[in-house]
């Protein structure tokens, strides 16, 4: 159907609108969230490194800072793309009615949706890349590693952005966004092998943590330290989850706009 079709210009135009808003308010919106994973890196790195020393990862001893650096990139991606897709899109959908306004222009629902989704992913990419850049400057991740990890960060940004959009489409009140944050985002942030290898968890928790998408994302971003034997399954898992979340998000948001 033509109404579900998308042109590159339409998608870009919606993305461009969000980017222009961001450009206007970047000092407020940009610095605090981006500094968050960098602060974790600095605080846990300096604070815990002397206590932990080296860690054994994939059968190799690794310094604690080199261990957590890829995880901090993933955290930047997770927080920024999820919050943009969840919180900011909810505001645009329910308070500012931006989506409704865009649909009075010659834009299709698909274009408005894709523009929003890509913008959420862009925010994830900005945070992930800047955290990665700090890791590179610190000598914790090589520039080539960072460059080759960009497609992986994009996949993670799209996945977590889609989770955010599903949240925006599902919740009725803004406070309800806390539900996925406390039930999903915070457990992922703490349990998915961010600050310690998941193997130290009890088997039951270990199994749950491994299924959560941030684990796959972090494991894959640690490819320079060694990959899991089932790394291709992890990649497939991220792609599958992304497709599931994005189709659920469309199903939730479309009926709110085209009644």
């Amino acid at each position, binding site marked *: 159907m033509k*109404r579900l079709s998308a042109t590159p210009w339409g998608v870009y*135009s919606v993305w461009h609108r969000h980017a*222009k808003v961001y450009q206007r308010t970047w000092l407020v919106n940009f610095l605090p969230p981006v500094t968050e994973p960098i602060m974790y890196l600095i605080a846990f790195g300096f604070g815990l490194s002397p206590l932990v020393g080296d860690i054994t990862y994939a059968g190799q001893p690794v310094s604690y800072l080199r261990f957590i650096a890829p995880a901090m990139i993933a955290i930047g991606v997770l927080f920024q793309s999820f919050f943009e897709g969840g919180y900011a899109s909810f505001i645009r959908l329910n308070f500012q*009615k931006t989506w*409704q*306004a865009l649909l*009075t222009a*010659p834009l299709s629902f698909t274009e408005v949706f894709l523009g929003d989704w890509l913008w959420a992913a862009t925010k994830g990419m900005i945070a992930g890349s800047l955290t990665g850049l700090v890791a590179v400057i610190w000598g914790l991740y090589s520039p080539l590693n960072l460059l080759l990890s960009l497609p992986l960060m994009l996949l993670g940004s799209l996945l977590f952005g889609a989770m955010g959009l599903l949240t925006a489409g599902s919740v009725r009140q803004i406070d309800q966004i806390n539900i996925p944050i406390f039930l999903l985002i915070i457990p992922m942030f703490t349990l998915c092998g961010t600050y310690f290898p998941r193997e130290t968890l009890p088997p039951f928790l270990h199994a749950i943590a491994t299924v959560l998408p941030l684990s796959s994302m972090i494991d894959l971003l640690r490819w320079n330290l060694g990959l899991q034997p089932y790394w291709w399954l992890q990649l497939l898992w991220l792609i599958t989850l992304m497709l599931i979340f994005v189709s659920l998000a469309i199903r939730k948001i479309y009926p709110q706009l*085209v*009644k």
Partner: protein
Amino acid sequence: MLTLNPTTDTTALVAHALSKQYGETPVVQDVSFTLNFREILGLLGPNGAGKTTIVGMLYGGVAPSRGFVQLGSTQVQSDGRTARAKMGIVTQEDNLDPDFSVFENLLHFAHHYRVVGKAARKRVGELLAQVRLEEHAQKRIDELSGGLKRRLVLARALINHPHVVFLDEPTTGLDPDARQEFWKLVIDLKQQGCGVLLTTHYMDEAQRLCDRLLLLQQGQVIDQGTPIELIDRTIGKEVVEIEGVDEATLQALATQFNTWCRPFGSGYLLALPLVPTPLWDHLVAAQPQRLTRRYANLEDVFLRLTGKVLE
């Protein structure tokens, strides 16, 4: 600017048998109409009559259960994006971008129509002049009054020189001066050749602006015509508002003089027959607390047809 061939291009838009149902509840039932260029067509009805749902179906924001909308050679339901490129849509809700200035709101919206760079800045300047907002160009949205915001939403709808413009209750909540200002802009659009469709529950707005009206009740068109036709056909010329006389007396008089009577506010409304009768003298003789004789208006038409006043 808009160029039209006056001999062949008279029909701007056709709505074919539009119906909308939510679950078992019908909201709009079998509504058909034509909107012409150089015309203001009004959808007049109380809140909940289905006006906004009809406008939604006209631009693709609401999917009809049955029926379709044709804009020139484009069918809105199958190609909404192409159709919307030729439409100007002013929705009821205020959905301006609070993060942008007045100027930027128009500039960034023009981007969606592929109007960018110098051309966009030029067009924004023209639009600000058209809706008389030049001196507010750099203001933030929260610094604008309700009337100025509505004018900005209208300007935003006009970016692409649309041939048809939909205004969904554009003056609701505005003070009388702001409404007058907005009405002038709507008349300008018509004079430029646009077909304008306006929904309203203000009788004076419909009477003052609209060339033709569709009267809506519970999703159905109950009558249509020019405001004068509707008043003449349904009411006649004059009505009487009367208080302090019991209904039985008034109904008896109405029957005697072959006219009608309806409860109206704290009293009753009676139509005066077109031919001279002694009805007025009878009413005076009944010694009412209040008795007013005035010209009939669209509110009376609505009361006569539906038994209800416009909310």
